[in-house]
């Protein structure tokens, strides 16, 4: 079981002369497992990331090509036959701008909407649990979601998807606007959902720390094309590619790289993605005693 994209293209506007068409995403072939994957999607501003993930939950229908979600086909041809609710129950998406996801009168009602709509039981208790997980306190349950700060809105939108318990969770730049603690808590939560409940997690992000520390597989888009799909460390090792596609190295890798050069530590592995691993690697090569 998986999501398979074959020759998927999307254009926001189809002109009468089809040869003038401008695709936001073109000719994409991808296969995404519906369990255990942790994927980040990265790439330059306007490269097609949001367009791609909106197709994955049938918010946008491919202009050409088709998406096969465990045997259910999504394509222009059978647009009217697609059971949208079924797709979205399985595959949840949090938008890049959470403002456009929120619409109910109160925060709590908003988070209840998804699970209620998908016929899930214990809606209110699940919604409350999700709100707690994203750090939203009871005192604003009854406020309008539109009276919240940017980061609070983001948290509420994320809670709505968590409460709906989809198999595949897709987040479009979920850590934008979150404070450092909120970001860390969210990512640890996603890691746990991935490890313990085998959920597939897909994150669109510009944050190389997240790519390094959390994802297994990384997909790079450029101008609507998939230009890389594979292991994150292999990507970071290819610095030409990193540069060409407006990316960067994670902070710990950058630091280790400079240390390696300055101290000529030939066998230092610089591809470490958090402080602890970076320290352990330095210790492995240098020894742990202060001189």
């Amino acid at each position: 079981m998986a999501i398979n994209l074959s020759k998927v293209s999307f254009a926001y506007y189809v002109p009468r002369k089809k040869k003038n068409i401008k695709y936001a995403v073109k000719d994409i072939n991808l296969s995404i497992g519906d369990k255990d994957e942790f994927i980040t999607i990265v790439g330059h501003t306007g490269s097609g990331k949001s367009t791609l993930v909106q197709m994955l939950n049938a918010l946008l229908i491919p202009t050409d090509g088709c998406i096969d979600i465990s045997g259910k086909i999504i394509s222009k041809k059978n647009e009217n036959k697609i059971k949208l609710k079924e797709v979205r129950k399985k595959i949840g998406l949090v938008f890049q701008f959470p403002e456009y996801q929120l619409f109910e009168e109160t925060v709590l009602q908003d988070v209840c909407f998804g699970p209620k709509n998908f016929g899930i039981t214990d809606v209110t208790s699940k919604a409350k649990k999700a709100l707690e997980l994203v750090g939203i306190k009871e005192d604003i349950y009854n406020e309008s979601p539109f009276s919240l700060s940017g980061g609070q809105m983001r948290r509420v939108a994320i809670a709505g998807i968590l409460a709906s318990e989809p198999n595949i969770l897709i987040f479009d730049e979920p850590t934008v606007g979150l404070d450092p603690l909120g970001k860390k808590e969210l990512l640890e939560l996603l890691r746990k959902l991935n490890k313990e409940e085998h959920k597939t997690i897909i994150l669109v992000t510009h944050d190389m720390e997240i790519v390094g520390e959390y994802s297994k597989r990384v997909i790079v888009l450029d101008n609507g094309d998939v230009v890389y799909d594979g292991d994150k460390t292999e990507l970071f090792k290819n610095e030409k590619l990193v540069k060409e596609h407006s990316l960067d190295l994670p902070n710990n890798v950058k630091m280790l790289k400079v240390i390696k050069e300055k101290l000529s530590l030939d066998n230092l592995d610089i591809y470490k993605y958090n402080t602890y691993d970076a320290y352990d690697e330095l210790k492995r090569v240098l020894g742990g005693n202060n001189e």
Partner: protein
Amino acid sequence: MSLVEVKNVSYKYTNRENALTDVSFNIEKGEFVCVLGHNGSGKSTLAKIIVGLLKAKSGEVIIDGVTLNEDTIDSVRQKLGIVFQNPDNQFVGVTVKDDIAFGLENRNIERSEMLRRIEYYSSLVDMEDFLDKNPENLSGGQKQRVAIASVLACEGEIIVFDEATSMLDPKGVKEVTNAIKKLKGQKTVIYITHNLDEALFCDRVIVLSKGVKVLDEKVLDAFKEKDILKSASLDILDSMKLIELIEEKGLSKGKEIEEILWQLTYQK
């Protein structure tokens, strides 16, 4: 006299707890001040009060010697610019070009200068090929780039950036922050962000927590206040985390490595 004086400002939205409580600070002309704080700490509220979009419930804001109020706001606003947290709240034009032009028309900039600025600022943010597009039909990062261009084009004296680069790719962040850095000494900048690395190009850091100012320090000193930062849901720089671990656990050549890490931090 400081260029911006925030004096005992408090603010409360109806039926909510205080969003800001008795916040005071001054900003000198040419200074870059970074504002950090947890979600809901009052950063955007403070930004809107400084540019006169919200009125403080008590206390006052003085810009270049003039106290903000209904009578003075129209003239003072010419000096102020703000890039909103959500770029969609910024757009007024049906094309990118109109959008940049709008603020300039309001400032009675003459046409040839207007065209020059549209060209200059749209290419500064790499959006010169999108001038005829509707800002609503752009990607998130493209919207942010346009919002930044529209505000920079007005060349106001004081510019507030409210998480203005949060959706840009790493190269885009570098380009835009380099462009902002070039304004050092000429413009006064209030830079709201959650990205600690971006705080490094500012002179000073103010931290809000639950609407209260809990820290106001020169930038590198601010990052030494670990406890205050942690209690405000913030963090310290990755370089400092590694230095801390080396000091705690020991490492041969540790001192040399710490020196390298400090240099990397200062370079930014």
